[in-house]
């Protein structure tokens, strides 16, 4: 990816939640880069820290959580050092976010048009008229018919799939350099999911917008992204080109995750299962976080946390047993 300019660079990010019972580390030394227009999939089970990472980039971690360490450089500027006011100018402008529930973005008492125009006016020195023009254009681009009429409607007049389209249109308003989509299609039916993902893929491609797709669904990630980062218990355990990781996973967790999918086993056969459950943030073991479930676990895995480093297969993985 050296041929493309760097858009986002996350280094050694640690996010902690300070609770009465003690500090919980939700994200532990996460590092990754994203080139301009690149699509990255952040994959993992619930509680792996993928959403927290996404929120962390936008500095949207709510109390008692806090970024305690690390740097996030976006378009050459350090986001962790920014004031709330500077951050606001980046959020919804240079970086947009799409949530699982479209109603997180949409205000139920305002028309779609009002919301889109207000968003634009907040970020760009343009007239209301120009803003409406842009809004119409974006509604058009997400393949919604009769945009003029749609702008005057309220969110409740749309179906779930339509709402998510509108959220994408809003995300595109300011032509951001990066979209962070957190499980954007998890609540939708498969036929609509495919439509929405295709739209997202198409738009990111044509507009050269970077995308971080946060999801638990490996198949979805494999269809949309160029690179994958697999998260487990707050850390990235493996990252590399999408096709390569799907075909030839290196880390035992990634291998287990892929093997557990019914697609990879003949119908009716026993599925390969990873024993046990992912430890919550308060029970992450010393050494490799996966050591409680790993069949190959050795002595060193219980004491030393493996760094994320290049492996022979061409990916980065955090495992002592590879090389």
């Amino acid at each position, binding site marked *: 990816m050296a041929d493309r300019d760097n858009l986002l660079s996350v280094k050694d990010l640690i996010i902690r939640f300070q609770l009465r019972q003690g500090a919980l580390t939700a994200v532990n030394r996460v590092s990754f880069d994203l080139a301009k227009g690149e699509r990255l999939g952040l994959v993992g089970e619930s509680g792996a820290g993928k959403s927290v990472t996404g929120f962390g980039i936008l500095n949207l971690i709510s109390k008692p959580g806090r970024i305690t360490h690390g740097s996030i450089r976006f378009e050459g500027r350090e986001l962790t050092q920014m004031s709330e006011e500077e951050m606001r100018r980046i959020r919804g402008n240079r970086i947009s976010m799409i949530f699982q529930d479209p109603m997180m973005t949409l205000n139920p008492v305002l028309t779609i048009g009002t919301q889109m125009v207000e968003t634009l006016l907040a970020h760009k020195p343009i007239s209301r008229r120009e803003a409406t023009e842009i809004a119409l254009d974006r509604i058009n681009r997400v393949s919604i018919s009769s945009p003029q009429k749609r702008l005057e409607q309220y969110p409740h007049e749309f179906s779930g*799939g339509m709402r998510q389209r509108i959220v994408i249109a809003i995300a595109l308003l300011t032509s951001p350099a990066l979209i962070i989509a957190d499980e954007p299609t998890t609540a939708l*039916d498969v036929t609509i999911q495919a439509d929405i993902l295709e739209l997202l*893929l198409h738009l990111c491609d044509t507009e050269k917008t970077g995308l971080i797709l946060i999801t638990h669904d490996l*198949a979805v990630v*494999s269809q949309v992204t160029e690179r994958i980062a697999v998260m487990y218990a707050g850390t990235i355990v493996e990252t590399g080109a999408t096709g390569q990781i799907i075909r030839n996973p290196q880390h035992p967790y990634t291998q287990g995750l892929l093997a557990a999918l019914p697609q990879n086993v003949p119908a009716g056969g026993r599925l390969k299962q990873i024993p046990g*459950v*992912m430890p919550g943030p308060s029970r992450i073991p010393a050494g490799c976080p996966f050591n409680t479930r790993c069949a190959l676990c050795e002595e060193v895995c219980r004491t030393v946390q493996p760094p994320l480093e290049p492996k022979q297969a061409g990916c980065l993985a955090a495992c002592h047993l590879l090389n």
Partner: protein
Amino acid sequence: MPRKTLISIQNVVKHFDISGGWLDQLKFSGGRLVRRKTVVRAVNDVSLDIEQGETLSVVGESGCGKSTLARTVMRLYPPDSGQVLYRGQRIDNLSSSDMKTYRTRMQMVFQDPYASLNPRMSVRQILEEPIRFLRGTLRRDEIQEAVAAIMLQVGVDPDWRDRYPHEFSGGQRQRISIARALAVDPEFIVADEPIAALDVSIQAQILNLMMDLQQERGLTYMFISHDLSVVKHISSRVAVMYLGTVCELARAGTVFQSPRHPYTQALLSAIPRLGEQGFRHERLKGDVPTPIQLPSGCVFHGRCRYADGRCVKEIPRLRQVDEQTMTACHAVEEGRI
């Protein structure tokens, strides 16, 4: 090999009146006050047979009536019309005391492992309740033995029987939920999206457990799911539902290899595919209509590219198109597809 029909669902219709109380039904229309009911037509004239020992999956998107159908079979809802037969005996009109004998033969596993276990009851209480109620002849120690045995079988340590549901992970809870269904030793289990709320690595554990139990106990499953890759893996037959009707019923292998109904084709083309870049799915036009105002004729006609005049007017019936497949589609029947 001819198999015995265990459950027979015949022309089941289930509608829900959601218009609320009498006062809420009053509406102004054309300057006059009229009383109008709002009815959700969740299941419309569905007929299915479930054979002993098989896994019949019912798939479809949200709102297609698959969960309602499952609950009607379990008699959580009485059908508005039609019948449900268990080994040839009609059970949809039984009194609750007559139904009691069937409760030991058919049980249900639910979707949400966080809502399906009573948070105020310990695992022991949860598992003992059905045994006490439905197998009343057992002695105290026999009940305890049964609970321990069933916990072992689903893979939950019996030493944890006095713990409460919130002390368990989602996967463990789903195991307990399965144990509760198995506690009365049923032969038929309705599983309503049993793995939809679980993480991938846990899904595999639960699916394996369900398949193992089926082998050990000769269980028959009615498996409700929207996850087609899971359905493909565990089913012997698949029924595809759309807006309250079954549009295709076939052997699992056949459905996934050569779907006949246009909706099934679109649905299958949209499954996310591992290791494939981009999308090649068939795009459906428009949105799913609401089950409050069902389209005339074939419920799919508004989104179907093969629809013609007949589809708008006449409701297609589920017909055998070849040895493996039944579909409800005029176009398939006429050979247009």
